[in-house]
């Protein structure tokens, strides 16, 4: 990192009105989030911020991300409190990207102007799909029409930096009579996306996470996902259509119009410090003499444990995970390579004492020969198109 040190603040809000069957995030079901429960949680968040901020002393705030869970369930004044406190602890690096994840429901839609007034500048809207059947199949609570209205309301409230989440390659509909092909459904979702024209799109292939109802259903043979060939074709289709419409695929699942890359998200792939507060949140603490590659730390995933620890003045974090040079090198490679720019040899050498080739020559040679990786004359590494499709196979060579 060059210039003055910065921090990204991640604020986890675990509450959801219902839990999606594919989700394995740290979430808590709260049919209606009462003000008492909300205030208690916000108080804990701010107490934790107070406690942790000194670990990031001298860092200015580059981004603030309210994720979840469903942070849009919070009252706008709660969001305002968090934003104000964050800027009190860390000098804002103008302009700070402040993102709020939003669920497309009517209550939250009405609050959008107030969120904007509270300081939110960017919305990440969990649209997932514009097809009712598909939404239902994904176990989402909202209808396609609510999604459309939320998008319109975002613009009406003055948000000019909107990201939209798409979830594709979901439960294979063609398995059912009259079901349409995944490709057709995706195309329709892409049509609707482009019609709205967000600044940013995160397009994720549905992943079966262990322990989720979807994983259990797939195991039991009840749930069928598109096969490998189809899923690959869908990934290619997303890239083809979004890039044709002027979006840049700047990370494996992230597309942005020029100037609208997600500042906060990029910190993870660049291994920049992030302070995560809230239940289950992770932090990447900046390098220190004792831990030259930083330390990763996770908060308790149990709401009560998290609250009790913070309220009694204790740390809600578990054992810190110091990043050894070998681990850090592996992460540097696989996180950087997710980005379009890939891994810069000079930056890598500055941190680890030698360029990637010094540590990974056989892997680099095998992977370039297999046309999965490109190595520039300076030793910079980027994934090829095929490498992006097989990125985990590539990454496994470096961990």
């Amino acid at each position, binding site marked *: 990192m060059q210039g003055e040190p910065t921090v990204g603040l991640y604020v986890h809000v675990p509450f959801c009105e219902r839990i999606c069957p594919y989700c394995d995030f740290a979430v808590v079901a709260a049919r209606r989030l009462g003000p008492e429960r909300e205030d208690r949680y916000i108080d804990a968040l701010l107490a934790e911020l107070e406690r942790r901020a000194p670990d990031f002393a001298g860092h200015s705030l580059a981004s603030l991300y309210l994720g979840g869970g469903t942070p849009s369930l919070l009252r706008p004044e709660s969001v305002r409190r968090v934003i104000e406190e964050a800027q009190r602890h860390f000098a804002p690096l103008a302009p700070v990207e402040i993102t709020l994840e939003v669920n497309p429901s009517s209550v939250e839609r009405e609050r959008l102007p107030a969120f904007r007034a509270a300081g939110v500048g960017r919305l990440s809207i969990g649209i997932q799909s514009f097809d009712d059947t598909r939404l239902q199949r994904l176990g989402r609570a909202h209808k396609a029409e609510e999604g459309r209205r939320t998008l319109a309301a975002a613009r009406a409230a003055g948000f000019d930096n909107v990201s939209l989440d798409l979830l594709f390659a979901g439960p294979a509909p063609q398995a059912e009579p009259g079901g349409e092909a995944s490709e057709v459904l995706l195309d329709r979702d892409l049509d609707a996306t482009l019609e709205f024209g967000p600044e940013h799109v995160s397009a994720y292939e549905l992943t079966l996470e262990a322990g989720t109802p979807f994983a259990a259903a797939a195991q039991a043979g009840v749930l069928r996902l598109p096969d490998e060939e189809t899923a*690959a074709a869908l990934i290619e289709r997303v890239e083809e259509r979004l890039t044709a419409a002027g979006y840049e695929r700047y990370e494996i*699942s992230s597309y942005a119009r020029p100037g609208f890359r997600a500042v906060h998200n990029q910190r993870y792939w660049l291994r920049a410090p992030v302070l995560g507060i809230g239940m289950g949140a992770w932090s990447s603490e900046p390098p220190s003499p004792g831990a030259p590659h930083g330390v990763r730390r996770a908060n308790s995933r149990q709401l009560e444990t998290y609250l009790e620890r913070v309220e009694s003045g204790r740390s809600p974090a578990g054992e810190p995970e110091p990043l050894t040079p070998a681990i850090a090198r592996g*992460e540097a490679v696989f996180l950087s390579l997710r980005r379009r720019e890939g891994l810069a040899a000079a930056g890598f050498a500055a941190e680890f004492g030698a360029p990637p080739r010094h540590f990974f020559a056989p892997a680099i040679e095998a992977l370039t020969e297999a046309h999965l990786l490109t190595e520039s004359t300076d030793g910079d590494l980027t994934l090829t198109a095929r490498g992006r499709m097989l990125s985990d196979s590539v990454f*496994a060579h470096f961990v």
Partner: protein
Amino acid sequence: MTEIPRERIRNFCIVAHIDHGKSTLADRLLEVTGTVSARDHRAQFLDNMDLERERGITIKAQTARMKYRAPDGDSYVLNLIDTPGHVDFSYEVSRALAACEGAVLVVDASQGIEAQTLANAYLAIDAGLEIIPVLNKIDLPSAEPDRVAREIEEVVGLDASDVLLVSAKEGKGVAELLERIVERVPAPEGDRDAPTRALVFDSWFDPYVGAVLLVRVVDGRLSVRDRVRFMATGSEREVQQLSVIEPYPCPVASLAAGEVGIVVAGLKTLAEVRIGDTITSRDGPAAEALVGFREAKPMVFAGLYPVEAEAYRDLKAALEKLKLNDSSFAYEPETSVALGFGFRCGFLGFLHGEIIQERLEREYDLDLITTAPTVRYRVVPKSGEPFEIESPAALPEPGDLDHIEEPMISATIHVPSEYVGAVLALCQDRRGTQQDMAVHGSRVQIRYRLPLGEVVTDFHDRIKSATRGYGSYDYEFMGYERAPLVKLDILVNGDMVDALSLIVHRDKAHSQGTELARKLKEFIPRQMYEVAIQAAIGTKVIARTTVKALRKNVTAKCYGGDITRKRKLLEKQKRGKRRMKKVGNVEIPQEAFLAALKLGDE
């Protein structure tokens, strides 16, 4: 101490299904005879390592000597002899049975006869033992003694009215059983004045004294400090310790014909022991050894290779150690083009091989690749002397071959009559020739001549599944026979993988090649490149399949907290690759090398 008269000795074993109460009954016999009290029983004793050390010898088998005073006032010595239990060790079972004159057949009064019991009962009947049928667990509400007694009569051919009703748990019928054993089991025969002959029927390793032998003295007697000769190995030793098991080892000065006990004779490792060997005295030896000795020779061979080449030395050291405790296992270094440096190992049977492999992986923490088991073929070249090969890779080019001979066995199979058809079909499929078939009530004894190569892997399992577990089989080696055998090779992206070659019958080559290629396709995961799998005989490709190239392997989301988890998933993926062998540019998982075992599994 006065010597126990022969006619006051009874040697017997208990035949039972695994949870039909064999141990409980054995414990109860020990208690009722006053050998141990209910409190101080054997299991507790075994847990007490210090005591064990004090006594000097570990006890492995559930063998025990009991003193029994009959109601008429006469005293007897009853030796309960333990028997091991699988077809690869059927020879060991047969030696343990040879040490007995009777067997108590225990059947659960509610469960009825289970397959394993029947198989062992057949062995006991074949060994000429007096069978005492017992219905156990008659205290259970679900007990159906009449039905199960009839079943014993129908299936085993024993008189239903003769069946004893016992509840080992409550001690009911145990006194009657003891009396029945004395009454029915013949006293051991043998001449105490004849030259000494003692049967070694079990052995184990003790870290303090080396090999411990369990013997049945058949003629004459063994005394401490006797100079003895092991007739099969020819080695000569001095008897250092003699004990009887009561159920602690209890030192004695001598063991006379008819008695059972422990011998320690300065044998350092089990490799120096042969089960079934006859101990005789060095001065005044017996003219002939006891009948039935068989050299436990490896019959089945497989390559064992470390997954990672660096583990070769560890594997070698582990094999050396295992060999100390298992004389029936053999190994020698072998090199494979595909797998690198490893060992060709010889086992008594397939199960024995699996046990060794499991011990190597578990006790020595080794990651191994095992090749498909094979047998020892005799190769007769066009010029030069015939020789034997234990690996398909060692087979000369077809042009240099006059012919190949394969090892043959005579298999004796016992089945309840309703399963005869299924067993005959299985034997025919395995290129068997029927020798004879005899019906004993509802049990049928079938004898088949079969190529050993057709039975080494799954024949036992197939017999079991064709007979719902009621069938059992044993085999005897019958020498070599010429057969039209060919070597089936597997090519992966054009490279021959020597470790996957098989020797098969010409008539089966095509179907086996096709199936093997198909099985391999299931085992070999998609990789960066398309993988072509071919089965070939000589230069002729007989089957071909393709594993398509991996199309997609990508993690959609990777943010904050997920990084550690994603990294661990990648590490796992990498470990998975490390456990695979790279042949050319193709990664082949360990299991694929055993794909040949899965042929015909549909």
